[in-house]
């Protein structure tokens, strides 16, 4: 199949969602967006994206909880997970990795770097 790999982007800030989506689409990826933790979880289960880019602080379920649940679910365990946070203390980073994130990016991040990280995760999860 020659379909573009699907990436989930979840953030409660509209502009950031737009920014990430633009950059990822420019890189040739398909993007599905969510505005809170619940819908991010639902979209991940339904659409099975290869990578999810999640903001840590979202209304309802926060990014850390979404990561935990995705990792706990057999169906979504293999998703590449990137956490974005504006609150990048060492303790936060540790919590993110403990929850099961693959990449932790601090806001403000460079869109180019984010795209590179997504590509990297896509390559890791290669054949699937």
């Amino acid at each position, binding site marked *: 199949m020659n379909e573009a790999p699907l990436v989930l982007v979840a953030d409660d*800030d509209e*502009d*950031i969602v737009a920014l990430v989506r633009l950059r990822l689409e*420019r890189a040739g990826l398909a993007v599905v967006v969510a505005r809170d933790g619940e819908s991010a979880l639902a979209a991940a289960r339904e659409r099975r994206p290869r990578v999810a880019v999640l903001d840590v*602080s979202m209304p309802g379920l926060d990014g850390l909880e979404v990561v935990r649940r995705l990792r706990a679910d057999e169906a979504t365990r293999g998703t590449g997970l990137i956490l974005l946070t504006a609150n990048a*203390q060492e303790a936060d980073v540790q919590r993110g990795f403990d929850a099961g994130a693959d990449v932790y990016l601090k806001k*403000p991040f*460079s*869109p180019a770097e984010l795209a590179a990280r997504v590509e990297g995760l896509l390559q890791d999860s290669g054949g699937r």
Partner: protein
Amino acid sequence: MARLRPNLRTPTEVYAGVSVVLTAIYFALGHGSIAQSVVYDGIAVASGLAIVAGVALNRPARPLPWLLFAAGQLSFAIGDVIFDVYERLGGSPPTPSAADVFYLSGYPFIAAGLVLLIRGLGIERRLAGFVDAGIVSVAFALLQWVFLMDGPVHDQTRSVADRAVNAVAYPAGDIVLLAALAAFFITPAWRTPSYRWLAAALIMLLVADEIYGLSSDTYSSGDWVDAAYMLSYAFFAAAALHPSMRNLGVHRRQGRRRISAGRAAVLAGALLTAPAALLVQRLRGAPLDVFAVVSAAGATSLLVVARMTGIVRALEGIRVRERAARAEAEAARRQLAEQNERLREADRLKDEFVAMISHDLRTPLTSIMGFLELALDKETGPLNEEQRSYLEVVSRNSERLLRLVDDLLFAARLRSGGLELARQELDLGPIVRQACDESKPRASSHGVELVLDLAQAPPVLGDRGRLFQLLDNLISNGVKFTPEGGTVTVAVRPAGDRVALEVRDTGIGIPAAEEERLFERFFRASTAVDRQIPGTGLGLYIARAIVDAHEGTISVESEVGSGTTFRIELPAAVRAEQPAEELVR
């Protein structure tokens, strides 16, 4: 040197010394000679005049008591002269004589002077002092009566006038003097030299009177008792001449009241007087005035009860005050704890606020900087040079804003939790190079040259991110405060068992007086403020925190107008194999 100098320097000492010598000479002269009379009366008159001189010399706030002493002494002196005239004219003077008139009128003057001095001390407010004085006076009065007055007063062989003067007036005068002396004894003035001279003078006078009283019938001029009278005169004058006489009549707060051993002994002696007098008279087989002993013992008992009441009341007062003080201290402590709690809470809220603000600033900054990056990306589409240069200004300023937000958040975290380092062994060279590379665009847009001066140096045990932050901080400071055409040099070199890192600029400098405060939170050098160079005053605070966390030191050397050098020393990482290598060499 001081020890070799004669001790007789002050007027008091000179006067007392000369008087003692004259007293000695007095007894070397012929018994009852004119020369003796001249010496004796000279000492007497000189005493009264010397007291007046002492008042003029020392200028006490209240001269009246001393002038009364002078009057009393002069009255005694006149009595002495008259007594001598009687003796010159033919033997012993009659009893009572004109001399007795002057002798007796001396006592009220001296007693009045003492009472005034004591009033000046504010002693009348202190019950304990008065009771003590009363106990001693009662005891002395009893002795006076039993051993001196009782016999002669009832001696029918003597004239009424003789009995009135010698058996009643003199001993009564002595009792008055002793009462005043005793009241004085219990004041804090006891420690002043002037008081001691005065007390010595009064004691001499009392001793002389007692001896004279017991042997008045056989007395003639030139007897040994004259020594006590002469010394009494001399000591009175010495007291008035001493500078400390100024403080004698002045009320001073007593630090703490205490009962000295001497005072306790005097009081015990006074209390034992009645039974002792009883015993002595009994052993002597002498008649005893039971009424006198009983009334003295009764008076003493009442005084002791008064004294004890005072003590108990004082103790209660102390206990009440202590309880109040303790309650007050407890209240103050509680208030302080509450205040501390409030302050801590306020501090916590403030740090939380700063963290929240900085978080909320990051989110819009993410969009600003992200979309800028997209806009400047060639893939987005061509921009003309002008548009590109505008967007680069926006980009530079968003980075500045981000740095500010980072600094604020970092400072807030430092305050609330301190700094945790992820340390590893690393070389400073590459970090310095990276920091310089990142600062290069800003430096060149400022027209400032960045120079690297890296020598081979041992690695340090450090947190890469924090050390980068430190260098970035210092370098951007250097660039910011250096005018166009200047240089910022970053040097790394070994310094013993440490690694030295220097950031030198040729900038505006920092006044020496401000160097101390430079690393304080929010402090900004006046040179920076005057030139309106933007900044938060957090950069060097953060720099020092990072250096401190690495167990290093940071110092500054600066001269206004010519530049500033920050020098950091970090301990070199200790390698286990290093000593061995050195041995091989």
